[in-house]
C-alpha cells in the first residue's frame, strides 16, 4: 500500500498502480461518453419524440393529510387539447408494496397506491393523471381539476409521530413502520457503569433532495406488433421497473420492455420505482398512443423521493485512555409517507443498525432502529444511505470524548480504529482489509504540513480569525452481494449481476451489464476492464445497459455496486470469451488447447511456436461464416455469459476527510478554506473518474452540511419548493478538493476494485460539522445538527465568552 497523489489529467502513458494493472485499467483515458454529451447528441428521456405522442401530468394533493371526498375531472376533460384524464378508480391498478420478511412487531407492511384513492398522505401526492396534446394543455387541464378534502391533522415531526394521535397509516400505531433492536451484546450496561467518561450526543440531519439535475421522466408507447409496452424511463433499476409495472398492470413481464436512455444523474432518487412511471405505462396500455411525462422542478422538490431526515441518540462509554468500551444508539428515521420499492422504509435504520460501529473497535453494542412514517414525500436511499448520518454520530462521539478527556481528537480515533484485518466486529460484520489508520495519518499529516494547525493556533492567540479543523474517518460497504442483502430480510434480494459478451466478425465486442450508468462512466471503465482481459483496443468495446430485452435481469446501479459486481461480471464474461477463442484457435492451429493463449494484441498465439497465430477476426470468421470448420464440441458464434455475486459481508472502501473552515464573525457564514480527501477504493480503474466521484460526492455532502434542507410548515406544506428556497451550492460555495489514493485491492472482486460512488457524500457532513465545532470551541456551543445555519453560527459567536 503506498500513498500516491493523483493529479487530475493522469494520462494513459502514466499508469499509477502496480497491482492488476493492464494496458487500460489504471489509465485516465478519454471517456467514451464525452463526445455525444459535449455536442448535444446525448439522448435524455425528454429528448425522445414519437409520432402522435401525447403528454401527461398529475393532479397533485394540495394538503398533507386528508380524506379525499371528491375528485371531479369534468372540467379537465373539457379543456382544449386534453385527450383523457384518469383517477385511481378509472385505472384500477395494483398498489406498490415493498416487504420485509420480519415479524409484525418489527415491520408493518403498507401499500403505496399508484394514484391516491381515498386518502392523501403528503402535499404533492398524485391523484389523477391528465393526458393532452402538448405540455401546456396538460397544465391547463391540471388547473381545471377540482378535488375536495376532509383535512386531517398532519404528522410532520418525530414527537407528533410517536405520540400517535394522528396516524399516517391506520395499520401503523405510533406511526412506526419498522422497529428493530438488532444488537444488544453482553456488557453494555457494565461498560457504562465502569466508564471513566460517558458521552451523550444527539445528532440530526435535515431532509434533503438527492436532486439529479435531470428530473424524473418517462416516455411509454405501445408496440401493437409485439403486444408490448415500451417504457423508456430514466431509472437506475430498469428491471425492477419492469417487474413492478407488470405486477401493477397485472400483465406478463414479457409484455413490458424497459429501456433507459442517457440519464442526468440519479444519486439514489431513481433507484426506486416511481408511481408516475407505472401510471404513464397504464395510460398507454389504454390509449395505445405514446405518452411522455417529465417531472417539473417543483414536483421534484416537493413530490419526488426525498432523503436523510434522521436522528441518532448516541451514548458511548470510554475509558481514561480514550478507548471506547460501549456504544448504545437509538436511530429514528423519518421515512415519509410510504415504503419505497424494492428497499422498504427499513433501509435506513437497518443499515445504520448493522454498520454503526463504523471503523472503530467497539466491544459492546446496543442499537434500536426505527422507521417512522409522516405526512411528507417518501424517501429513497440517497447516495450514502444512512452512512452520512451514523458516521456523523460516531465522529461527533469521538470529538466529544477527546474534549472530555483532554485528548487530541485524531489521537482518540487512532486508539480506536481497526488496524488488523479481516476484522469481525461486535456487529457480526467482517471487514476486509483497508487503510483506516493510514488514511487518518496521511490526512492529518497533510493538514499539519500545510501549516493549518499552526495557523489555527496563531489565530487563537491573536484573536483575528475563527478557524476550525475537522476530520472524519469512515468506511463504506460497497459490494453488497445477495448474502449481505438477505440479512436485511428484504423479500426482494438484490445482489448478483449478469453480463453477456459478443464478439462480431470484425473482432469488435459488445458487452452487456445489468448495472445502469448515469454519470459514473461505465461505458469507459467497463470497456477498460474488457479491453485488458481480451487484449484489444478499448475503442473496440461497446457497453450496452438499460434494456430489459438485452439483459435477462439486473439490479441496476446503487450502493457503489457497479464496478465491484457489474465490473466483475463483465471481467468474467470476457475471460470466458477468451477461453472460447483459445479453444477454436487451438483446433484451427491443430494443436492442444493448453498450447495456445491470448497474445494481448487481438489474437491467439501458439505457445511453442509464436510464429503461428490467429487474429480474432480470423477466428470470428470461422465462428460465424464458416462454422463447418469449428471443433465438434463448440457451438457457432462468439458469445459468453457470466454472473457475479459478492460472497459474505461484502467489501469496504474507506477514507479520511480533513477540512479547514473559517466562520465569518460578521455573517456566521462558513467558508471552507481547505479540503483534503485520502481514500482507498481498492484498484482504481480510471483515476480521473474516481477523483470525479470523490469531488462530486463531497460537494453533495457539503450541501447537506451547510445549505440544503427540505422544510415544511406545521401543516406539512413544503416551504422549499423552488431553487430560491432550496439552496443548492454553486461553484463559489464548493471548494477545490485535493485527493490522495491508498490502494488495498479487494481480494474477492475480479478487478480488485471496491467501489467509489458514495464515499465523498458520506464523509463530508461529519468532517465539516467537526471543523465548524472546532472553530466555535471557545464559545461553549457545540452543534450536532445539519445543515448548519449561518444564524446558528452567528449566535454562537456573539455569545462567546472569552472569545474574540
Amino acid at each position, binding site marked *: 500500500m503506498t500513498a500516491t497523489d493523483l493529479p487530475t489529467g493522469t494520462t494513459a502513458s502514466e499508469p499509477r498502480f502496480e497491482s492488476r494493472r493492464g494496458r487500460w485499467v489504471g489509465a485516465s483515458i478519454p471517456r467514451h461518453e464525452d463526445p455525444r454529451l459535449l455536442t448535444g447528441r446525448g439522448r435524455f428521456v425528454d429528448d425522445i419524440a414519437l409520432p402522435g405522442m401525447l403528454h401527461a401530468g398529475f393532479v397533485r394533493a394540495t394538503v398533507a393529510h386528508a380524506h379525499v371526498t371528491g375528485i371531479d375531472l369534468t372540467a379537465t376533460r373539457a379543456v382544449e387539447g386534453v385527450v383523457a384524464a384518469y383517477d385511481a378508480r378509472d385505472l384500477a391498478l395494483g398498489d406498490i408494496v415493498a416487504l420485509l420478511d420480519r415479524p409484525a412487531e418489527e415491520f408493518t407492511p403498507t401499500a403505496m397506491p399508484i394514484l391516491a384513492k381515498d386518502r392523501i398522505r403528503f402535499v404533492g401526492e398524485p391523484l389523477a393523471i391528465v393526458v393532452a396534446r402538448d405540455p401546456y394543455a396538460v397544465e391547463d387541464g391540471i388547473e381545471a381539476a377540482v378535488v375536495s378534502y376532509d383535512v386531517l391533522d398532519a404528522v410532520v415531526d418525530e414527537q407528533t409521530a410517536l405520540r400517535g394521535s394522528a396516524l399516517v397509516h391506520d395499520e401503523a400505531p405510533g406511526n412506526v413502520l419498522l422497529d428493530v433492536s438488532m444488537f444488544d451484546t453482553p456488557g453494555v450496561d457494565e461498560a457504562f457503569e465502569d466508564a471513566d467518561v460517558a458521552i451523550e450526543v444527539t445528532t440530526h440531519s435535515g431532509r434533503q433532495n438527492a436532486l439529479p439535475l435531470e428530473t424524473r421522466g418517462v416516455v411509454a408507447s405501445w408496440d401493437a406488433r409485439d403486444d408490448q409496452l415500451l417504457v423508456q424511463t430514466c431509472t437506475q433499476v430498469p428491471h425492477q421497473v419492469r417487474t413492478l409495472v407488470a405486477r401493477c398492470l397485472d400483465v406478463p413481464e414479457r409484455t413490458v420492455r424497459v429501456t433507459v436512455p442517457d440519464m442526468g444523474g440519479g444519486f439514489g432518487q431513481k433507484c426506486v420505482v416511481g408511481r408516475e412511471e407505472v401510471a404513464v405505462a397504464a395510460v398507454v396500455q389504454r390509449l395505445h398512443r405514446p405518452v411522455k411525462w417529465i417531472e417539473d422542478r417543483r414536483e421534484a422538490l416537493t413530490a419526488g423521493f426525498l432523503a436523510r431526515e434522521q436522528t441518532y441518540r448516541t451514548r458511548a462509554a470510554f475509558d481514561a485512555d480514550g478507548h471506547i468500551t460501549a456504544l448504545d444508539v437509538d436511530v429514528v428515521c423519518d421515512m415519509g409517507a410510504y415504503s419505497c420499492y424494492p428497499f422498504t422504509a427499513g433501509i435506513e435504520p437497518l443499515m445504520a443498525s448493522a454498520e454503526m460501529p463504523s471503523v472503530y473497535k467497539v466491544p459492546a453494542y446496543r442499537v434500536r432502529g426505527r422507521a417512522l412514517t409522516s405526512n411528507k414525500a417518501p424517501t429513497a436511499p440517497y447516495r450514502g444511505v444512512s452512512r452520512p448520518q451514523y458516521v456523523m454520530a460516531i465522529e461527533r462521539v469521538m470529538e466529544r470524548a477527546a474534549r472530555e478527556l483532554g485528548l487530541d481528537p485524531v489521537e482518540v480515533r487512532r486508539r480506536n480504529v481497526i488496524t488488523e484485518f479481516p476484522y469481525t466486529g461486535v456487529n457480526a460484520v467482517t471487514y476486509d482489509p483497508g487503510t483506516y489508520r493510514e488514511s487518518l495519518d496521511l490526512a492529518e499529516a497533510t493538514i499539519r504540513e500545510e501549516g493549518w494547525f499552526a495557523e489555527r493556533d496563531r489565530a487563537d492567540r491573536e484573536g483575528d480569525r475563527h478557524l476550525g479543523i475537522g476530520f472524519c474517518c469512515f468506511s463504506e460497504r460497497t459490494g453488497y452481494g445477495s448474502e449481505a442483502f438477505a440479512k436485511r430480510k428484504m423479500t426482494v434480494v438484490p445482489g448478483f449481476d449478469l453480463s453477456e459478451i459478443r464478439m462480431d466478425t470484425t473482432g469488435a465486442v459488445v458487452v452487456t451489464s445489468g448495472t445502469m450508468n448515469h454519470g459514473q462512466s461505465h461505458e469507459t471503465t467497463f470497456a477498460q476492464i474488457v479491453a485488458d482481459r481480451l487484449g484489444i483496443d478499448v475503442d473496440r468495446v461497446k457497453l450496452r445497459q438499460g434494456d430489459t430485452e438485452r439483459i435477462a435481469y439486473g439490479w441496476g446501479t446503487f450502493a457503489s455496486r457497479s464496478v465491484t459486481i457489474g465490473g466483475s461480471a463483465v471481467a468474467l464474461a470476457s475471460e470466458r470469451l477468451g477461453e472460447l477463442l483459445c479453444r477454436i484457435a487451438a483446433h484451427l492451429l491443430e494443436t492442444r488447447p493448453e498450447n495456445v493463449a491470448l497474445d494481448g494484441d487481438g489474437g491467439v498465439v501458439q505457445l511453442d511456436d509464436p510464429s503461428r497465430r490467429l487474429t480474432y477476426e480470423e477466428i470470428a470468421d470461422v465462428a460465424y461464416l464458416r462454422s463447418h470448420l469449428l471443433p465438434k464440441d463448440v457451438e457457432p458464434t462468439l458469445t459468453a455469459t457470466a454472473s457475479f455475486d459478492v460472497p459474505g459481508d461484502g467489501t469496504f472502501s474507506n477514507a479520511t476527510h480533513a477540512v479547514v473552515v473559517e466562520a465569518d464573525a460578521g455573517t456566521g457564514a462558513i467558508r471552507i478554506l481547505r479540503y483534503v480527501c485520502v481514500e482507498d477504493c481498492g484498484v482504481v480503474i480510471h483515476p480521473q473518474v474516481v477523483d470525479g466521484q470523490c*469531488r*462530486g460526492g463531497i460537494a453533495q455532502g457539503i450541501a447537506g452540511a451547510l445549505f440544503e434542507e427540505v422544510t415544511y410548515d406545521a401543516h406539512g406544506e413544503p416551504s422549499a419548493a423552488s431553487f430560491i428556497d432550496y439552496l443548492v451550492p454553486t461553484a463559489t460555495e464548493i471548494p477545490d478538493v485535493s485527493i490522495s489514493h491508498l490502494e488495498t485491492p479487494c481480494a474477492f472482486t475480479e478487478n480488485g476494485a471496491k467501489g467509489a460512488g458514495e464515499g465523498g457524500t458520506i464523509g463530508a457532513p461529519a468532517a465539516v460539522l467537526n471543523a465548524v465545532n472546532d472553530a466555535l470551541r471557545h464559545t461553549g456551543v457545540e452543534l450536532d445538527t445539519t445543515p448548519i445555519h449561518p444564524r446558528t453560527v452567528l449566535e454562537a459567536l456573539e455569545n462567546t465568552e472569552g472569545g474574540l
Partner: protein
Amino acid sequence: MNDPHLLSLTVNGAEEEVVVEPRRTLADVLRHDLRLTGTHVGCEHGVCGACTVLLDGAPVRACLVFAVQAEGADVRTVESLDAEGRLSDLQQAFSDHHGLQCGFCTPGFLMLAEGVLAESPDADREEIREALSANLCRCTGYQTIVDAVHATACARRSQEVPS
C-alpha cells in the same frame, strides 16, 4: 391571448420560421420545434442554467425567454460548437479535465463559458469560478469545470497574436 405568432429567428446560422403560442418558451422552441435537444431544461425558473444559450452573443436562460421575444435574434446552442464532429477547444478541455459526468448540465455550462470568455477573455481562475456560479452542476463539484474553462481561457490567450 393564445393566438399563434409566426416567429423568425436565426439558430446556429440557419434562418428558421416557427409558429408559436405567445406563452411558448425559447427552450421549448429550440428543443421540441427545431429538435435541437442539446439544450436542456433543469428547473424552468431560471436558476440552474442548464438551458443557457447565447442570444445575440449573450448568455440567457432559454426557459425564461418567451420564444416571441427572440424575434429576429441570433441564437447559438451547444450544437453550434463542434465542427463536423471535431470538438471545439472548450469541449475538448471539458473532456480532458473530466468536467462532466452525467452531462445534463454540460451544454448550459459550455454556452455560459463561451459567453463569459467572449466578454472577459482575460478572466483569471477565480473570476471564472465566480461567473460559472450562475449555473448548477450536481455531479462534479465544479472544480474540473472551472479547470476546463480556465485552461481554455489560457490557451486562447496564448494563441492571440500580439498587436
